[in-house]
């Protein structure tokens, strides 16, 4: 008995993209919680970048404005670091986001039982199904995280401009902002992949007999 069954990588990307496109609404719901959580993460981090830029100038004026804005600073501080409270809120929001993704992906798997079972009847191996789900989640992760990072970063800059004036924007270290955005995008992709892990496993382990069940 022979045993070679393949699925070229390019083809799996094609299928994953198509799935996202066709189930656009479902993908949007799955991605939305990620967008929001990553936007929050990036808002906080870029906000801190702005504050650091201002502190680095050493002007007392900026210092007072920052304290007014709610930053916990003692005289002589040249950096703001995210406070424990801030960190906890961010971590919680990311956790909630992962739970949301798991929930949405589990529903997607249930909706697609017949499709998965059929693919298995056509010769798909468990790991093709795994790969398809991880690819879809990865693509959703990149797109969602990028959108979230830009949204949150943009909002942070906008609020800095409104609160401290145009001059403040000139002091921002753009390298730091870019690093914060990059961190947010990477975090988003990782969260999306963590969220799909269990649902993908459920899908891959599904038996092909499921495709035969007649009741919808």
């Amino acid at each position, binding site marked *: *008995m022979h*045993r070679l069954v*393949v699925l070229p990588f390019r083809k799996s990307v094609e299928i994953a993209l198509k799935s996202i496109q066709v189930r656009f609404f479902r993908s949007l719901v799955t991605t939305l919680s990620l967008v929001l959580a990553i936007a929050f993460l990036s808002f906080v981090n870029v906000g801190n970048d702005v504050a650091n830029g201002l502190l680095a100038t050493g002007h007392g004026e900026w210092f007072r404005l920052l304290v007014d804005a709610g930053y916990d600073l003692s005289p002589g501080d040249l950096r703001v670091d995210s406070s424990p409270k801030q960190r906890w809120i961010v971590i919680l929001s990311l956790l909630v986001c992962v739970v949301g993704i798991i929930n949405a992906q589990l529903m997607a798997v249930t909706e697609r039982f017949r499709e998965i079972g059929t693919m298995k009847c056509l010769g798909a191996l468990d790991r093709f199904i795994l790969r398809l789900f991880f690819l879809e989640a990865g693509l959703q992760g990149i797109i969602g995280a990028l959108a979230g990072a830009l949204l949150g970063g943009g909002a942070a800059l906008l609020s800095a401009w409104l609160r401290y004036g145009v001059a403040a924007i000139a002091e921002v270290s753009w390298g730091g902002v870019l690093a914060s955005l990059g961190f947010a995008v990477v975090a988003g992709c990782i969260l999306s992949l963590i969220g799909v892990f269990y649902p993908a496993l459920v899908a891959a382990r599904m038996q092909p007999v499921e495709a*035969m069940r*007649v009741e919808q």
Partner: protein
Amino acid sequence: MTTDSHIVRVAGVTKSFQLGKLTVDALKGIDLEISAGEYISIMGPSGSGKSTLFNMIGGLDKPTAGKVYIDEVDVSQLDAYELAWLRCRKIGYIFQTFNIIQVMTALENVTLPMTFAGIGGDEAVDRGMALLETVGLADRFQHKPFELSGGQQQRVAVARALANDPAIILADEPTGNLDLTTGEEIIALLKELSSDRQVTVISATHDFKMLNVSDRVVWIRDGRVDKIENRDELSISIGEIGTRG
């Protein structure tokens, strides 16, 4: 191998399902031998175990006892990779609910098993188009499933089942969700394939329209083979049905 080798051999297959404390014996000992190129109908009332038997023959489920041999290879001995190969190359499945993959066009559905078999690009497209031509849907190749009628979807499914030139086509109630005329068209198509391509067609059904085209009919009842009739013996049963119905 003897000259009279069997492409499918079912030996003493039983299958029980555990539903809580209740055990349902769906198959109670089935023996069946099918030769290459035959058109076999598995007939029986709803709940008689047709689908269960179908899943055993297709390597989709494991018997509780007994063995299923495809080309004299014991299916239960195959590992995941060999089973995938069997499903991909050796057997074509047709379902009552068509099971066309919703996100793909008709052509993509037909070429998907070819992709799994390592055939891609132009060759897959050419072969896919030829198969769609065979089932009379060449002009619909870019349509999505929801743009096709039930009969057309089942035609796509037939083309997809033929993608890798399988030796066996397994169909579970292929006309169950179709109206009379469309059902007849699908039956005629299956018959044509069986005689033109020498594909072994095994079809579970309670559609009496299948009787005319079958080489043999396996009547099952309550998880057992009731009787097996060759085509020439069939007129009697059809007569009976005629007088009953």
